[in-house]
């Protein structure tokens, strides 16, 4: 009987992907779509040994779910991720040596599925083996080291995505910075306005219903429509006040992007602030009042600190949501990683799309992990 069905399922998906889908694709140039290169090409000779850490995951599905088993899974998956990258880089180098300089060698669906299943097995094992988010982050980072080492070694240089990066790494750097600016630029006003609104919603039940309906309506506006809707009024305002465009406020660019992101981010912040304040035990508030604390003292010394874990969870959700949404900011000319992604989409260059997408995914994962750790730290103090 399998004891870990998740792992077994992942293994099955990975195996099918390994043999049925293209590991790499090879195109003579950037314009035509590629021909599949199967995994068998990548593992010829003694290279099949690189699949061993992946195969070693199978028995773990039948072992007792204890920490040693999970650590074994973490080790195998970690090595397997590195091995997959190495195989891809190695195969790309051999293909490139045989073909023309113009040939584009891209990572295929088989590679991505194998990589994704191994990464899922890894994160599942880390989650099961360790409780504290700080340990989880440390272990996750350690497990990523072999893969990072392969990437850093330059072994993947013949892959199209690496060449795209080499050609555009300055642009990617600028886009990452702009992306972070957009996210933080939207988060700051969201916190400055959302937290007081949350306090207000918790204090005035009569205000709560209309406030949340309004915020919910904003959430239902499709994001692309929202960016578009903001362009017209902002352009009109800029028309009336010529000083504004010089400050960067106009119908296109950063201003509509940040306003739209801010509007979307409000709901989770306000909702969690209100929920956090509502969760403060009544007895604490009664005792605080009875001891002669003023309303302001009660808010700052008791209510907000006690609501902090819930508020921070709201910030975590918002941050991840903003990192994803900020992609669309590129459509109103605000730049960011979305710009690279859309450029790739319109040019039908999948590798360039990935150049935009991978940093977004990493950013979202890092933000999520960091905020989870922060929430855990705040809670740990009281437990």
């Amino acid at each position, binding site marked *: 009987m399998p004891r870990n069905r998740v792992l077994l399922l992942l293994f099955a998906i990975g195996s099918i992907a390994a043999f049925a889908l293209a590991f790499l694709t090879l195109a003579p140039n950037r314009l035509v779509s590629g021909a599949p290169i199967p995994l068998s090409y990548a593992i010829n000779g003694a290279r099949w040994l690189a699949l061993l850490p992946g195969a070693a995951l199978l028995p773990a599905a039948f072992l007792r779910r204890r920490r040693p088993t999970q650590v074994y899974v973490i080790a195998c998956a970690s090595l397997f991720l590195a091995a997959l990258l190495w195989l891809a880089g190695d195969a790309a180098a051999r293909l490139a040596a045989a073909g023309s300089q113009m040939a584009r060698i891209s990572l295929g669906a088989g590679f991505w599925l194998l990589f994704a299943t191994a990464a899922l097995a890894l994160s599942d094992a880390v989650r099961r083996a360790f409780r504290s988010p700080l340990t989880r982050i440390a272990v996750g980072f350690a497990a990523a080291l072999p893969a990072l080492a392969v990437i850093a070694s330059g072994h993947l240089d013949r892959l199209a995505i690496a060449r795209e990066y080499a050609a555009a790494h300055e642009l990617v750097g600028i886009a990452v910075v702009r992306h972070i600016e957009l996210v933080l630029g939207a988060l700051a006003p969201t916190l400055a306005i959302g937290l007081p609104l949350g306090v207000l919603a918790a204090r005035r039940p009569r205000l709560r219903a209309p406030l949340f309906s309004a915020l919910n309506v904003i959430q239902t506006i499709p994001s692309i429509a929202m960016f578009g809707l903001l362009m017209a009024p902002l352009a009109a305002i800029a028309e009336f006040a010529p000083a504004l465009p010089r400050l960067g406020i106009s119908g296109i660019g950063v201003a509509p992007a940040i306003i739209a992101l801010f509007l979307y981010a409000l709901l989770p912040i306000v909702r969690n602030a209100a929920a956090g304040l509502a969760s403060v*035990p*009544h007895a604490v508030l*009664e*005792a605080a*009042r*009875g001891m*002669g*604390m003023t309303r302001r003292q009660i808010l700052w010394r008791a209510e907000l600190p006690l609501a902090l874990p819930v508020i921070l969870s709201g910030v975590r959700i918002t941050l991840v949501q903003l990192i994803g949404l900020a992609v669309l900011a590129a459509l109103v000319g605000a730049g960011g990683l979305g710009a690279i992604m859309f450029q790739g989409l319109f040019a039908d260059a999948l590798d360039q799309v990935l150049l935009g997408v991978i940093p977004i995914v990493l950013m979202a994962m890092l933000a999520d992990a960091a905020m989870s750790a922060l929430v855990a730290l705040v809670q740990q103090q*009281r437990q």
Partner: protein
Amino acid sequence: MIEFEDVSKSFDGAKAVDRLSFTVAAGEFFVLIGPSGCGKSTTLKMINRLEDYTSGHIRFAGKDITEYPVEALRRRIGYAIQSVGLFPHWTVEQNIATVPRLLRWPRPRIRDRVAELLRLLRLDDDSRHRYPHQLSGGQQQRVGVARALAADPDVLLMDEPFGALDPVTREALQSEIARIHQETKKTIVFVTHDMQEALRLASRIAIMNRGRLVQIGSPIALVREPADDFVRAFVGGDDRGIKLLSLETAAERVRAGESAPGPPIRADAPLSRALSLMIEHATDRLPVIDASGRPLGALHLADFPRQ
């Protein structure tokens, strides 16, 4: 110390508290008791203005309570409640220091005061760095009482403070609060619905029913001369004789110099315990000793029914 003059509170036309008048003298242990919903908690919370009243006057230390800034009034009145309400994100020390910090006491004075209160409530000095959830229910309420006493308030208000504790812990804390009352001579206003607790602790008891004061007096007076059937039932109905015995001590009936066989009883033990011992050991007399174990005389069952 506290004066109620014709105080009423109406709730949608119904009277939650109806024309209450009484005075709590300095140093008294004043217990408000009655069935749930009788208005005793509301009455208590009027004193520190957690509840409003519709008419009448309440005076604290000679001045109408509405003449004090509300926070200043509350900082002069200790407050302990059944659910304790410790701040979960603060250590025991920080919790106890709440009001002194609000009053901006210097740090060394706060530290000394916390140490003093930990001793008074018989809490370990190590516990000052613990968080509330690391303490048992009884310890939490000890911290709650310490916090209420922290700024040396003139008056201590306690709203069913031991109601949520198990019987053994409750009894221990009752002894504790009785001792603290003796040592500090604080004025205590105490709400409970437990008559046993009231008889044990109170110097005076006010019985309330449906927002009104039914009878007010010393524990013995209430048990001996209940004003009506409600009070009679509330102070113990058929068990009133036993209740009376629980209010007198062996010292009050001892025949000095006599001796008796059987298990000795301490002079400060209630007569109800003496009766229980006699029944248990099938005897009608007991030797009485003082706190240091010296024999004082004998207690005779025949002397119990004396008025």
